[in-house]
């Protein structure tokens, strides 16, 4: 397993795609802040801006692209053959990729938060101490990252083709939820007081209350705890099952 981690880490360090994708995100943050400053938008404090850095930037979409490239890379280039042929189990190969890519997503999130904070300070936004609520929000956001990472990573491994994985990660989930929402509403159109909303279970909607700065309701807190972990278990498990059976 240690060899696999070293191998994945070496690939990652030299991955131009990684630097381009996340570098693009930093450029976007800079431009957005510059634009706000020029337009004279009401400035939030730097600490609050840091709390909303993950959801308020393009990081999630870029993570979808990066994970598709990373998870599918060895399958689409067929280099996975060389890895299996050296006697490494499919489970070890899969989870080494999972762990390394999760660490990168965490590192990217921290980088985005710190960068947003520093930029806000440079632009003259005032700084507040991090509140207990904000520490809790950070923790829940990292839990949420485990969910979104699991979703993108598992899906990408299942489909194996980079292009399809990118499309699925960027648009597929939203599309599926929109269609399901439409279908459910059509089916239950005549039921009185029907207030089930499937999009409440979409990861993006779970994140919103965490970055809003408002106190969470009990339902929101439960969703923030349970839904990301459920996504991770289902999609990482699904990707693992597919990787076990696939001929390369």
């Amino acid at each position, binding site marked *: 397993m240690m*060899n*696999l981690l*070293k*191998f994945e880490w*070496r*690939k990652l360090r*030299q991955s*131009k795609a990684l630097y381009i994708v996340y570098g693009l995100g930093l450029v976007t943050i800079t431009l957005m802040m510059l634009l706000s400053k020029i337009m004279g938008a009401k400035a939030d404090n730097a600490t609050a801006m840091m709390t909303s850095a993950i959801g308020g930037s393009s990081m999630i979409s870029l993570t979808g692209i990066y994970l598709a490239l990373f998870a599918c890379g060895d399958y689409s*280039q*067929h*280099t*996975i*053959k*060389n*890895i*299996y*042929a*050296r*006697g*490494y*189990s499919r489970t070890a190969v899969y989870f080494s990729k999972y762990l390394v890519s999760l660490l990168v997503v965490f590192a990217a999130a921290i980088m985005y938060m710190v960068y947003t904070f520093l930029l806000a300070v440079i632009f003259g936004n005032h700084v507040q101490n991090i509140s207990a609520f904000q520490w809790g929000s950070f923790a829940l956001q990292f839990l949420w990252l485990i969910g979104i990472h699991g979703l993108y990573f598992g899906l990408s491994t299942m489909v194996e083709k980079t292009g399809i994985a990118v499309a699925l990660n960027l648009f597929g989930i939203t599309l599926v939820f929109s269609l399901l929402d439409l279908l459910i509403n059509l089916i239950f159109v005549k039921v009185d007081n029907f207030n089930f909303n499937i999009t409440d279970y979409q990861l993006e909607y779970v994140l919103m209350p965490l970055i809003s700065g408002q106190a969470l309701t009990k339902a929101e807190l439960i969703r923030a705890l349970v839904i990301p972990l459920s996504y991770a278990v289902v999609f990482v498990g699904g990707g693992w099952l597919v990787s076990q*059976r696939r*001929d*390369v």
Partner: protein
Amino acid sequence: MSESQNNYVVETNNLTKTYGSKTVLDHVNMHVAQGDIYGFIGKNGAGKTTLMKLLLGMSQPTSGTMSLFGTDKLSLARHHIGSLIEEPALYHGCTAAENMRRFAILANADTSEVDEILRFVGLGDVGTKKVGKFSLGMKQRLGIAIAMLGHPDLLILDEPINGLDPEGIKEIRDLLLRLNREQGVTVLVSSHLLDELAKITTRYGIINHGRLVEEISAEDLMKQCQQKLHIVTEQPAVAAKLIKKLSPKAKITANENSLDVVDEKLESAKVNQALVNGGVDVTSITFAADKMEDYFIQRMGGRA
């Protein structure tokens, strides 16, 4: 874990692979001994690559078992195998050296091996050129170089000389011979270039439509294919006795109206004289030889 008592590096037992209703490998029992250069021969689609992929864990068998280095702990055994299956699988955006360094980690190889092996396969001077810009022959050499990382005890090579020029083919052939003779590396190699394979192979496996038709040593194959006297006569039994008197070591196969005699020291004139003196009517005496290529083609189910 079951340990077999023989010295087979590769042994399969009724190994079968099916895709839906299509049987690609059908109860294959293969035996590759320590020190062999095992030539695996068959038409396109006969099952050569599929079998190699099963041995390397790239694909799962439908039924049957296999052992590598006498053990059924396949993952551990595969640490001692270097392989090249189909086209070389490489990181095209990287240099040859970087590809080697990455796979060196997986092969537990020292990075000092990298330059040495690259020079060995004739890629010592490619510098910073990206692998994506390599010719097919260069990629093939790099694929072989990656297979050599970590001093493997067994090399499994699927069509390794594909895309190489005659000089490159000779270099790879010499390389395999050196690895086999100097370092005792066992080699399982497939190729459709029978002449090239015949120059190095010590044992052959012939596969046709997923079935291993025959395993034969190079020595036995040479005997099968060596020149023989083909004698047409109405009295093959009498003729056989006379020839045995003339040369007790001769190998004689008698048929209804003819017999084949294999003895490299026997001259046709002497045989003819002995038969005539013994009262045997000889219709004809000719030299016949089974060509190696014909031998394979016959067992592979005719020409493709």
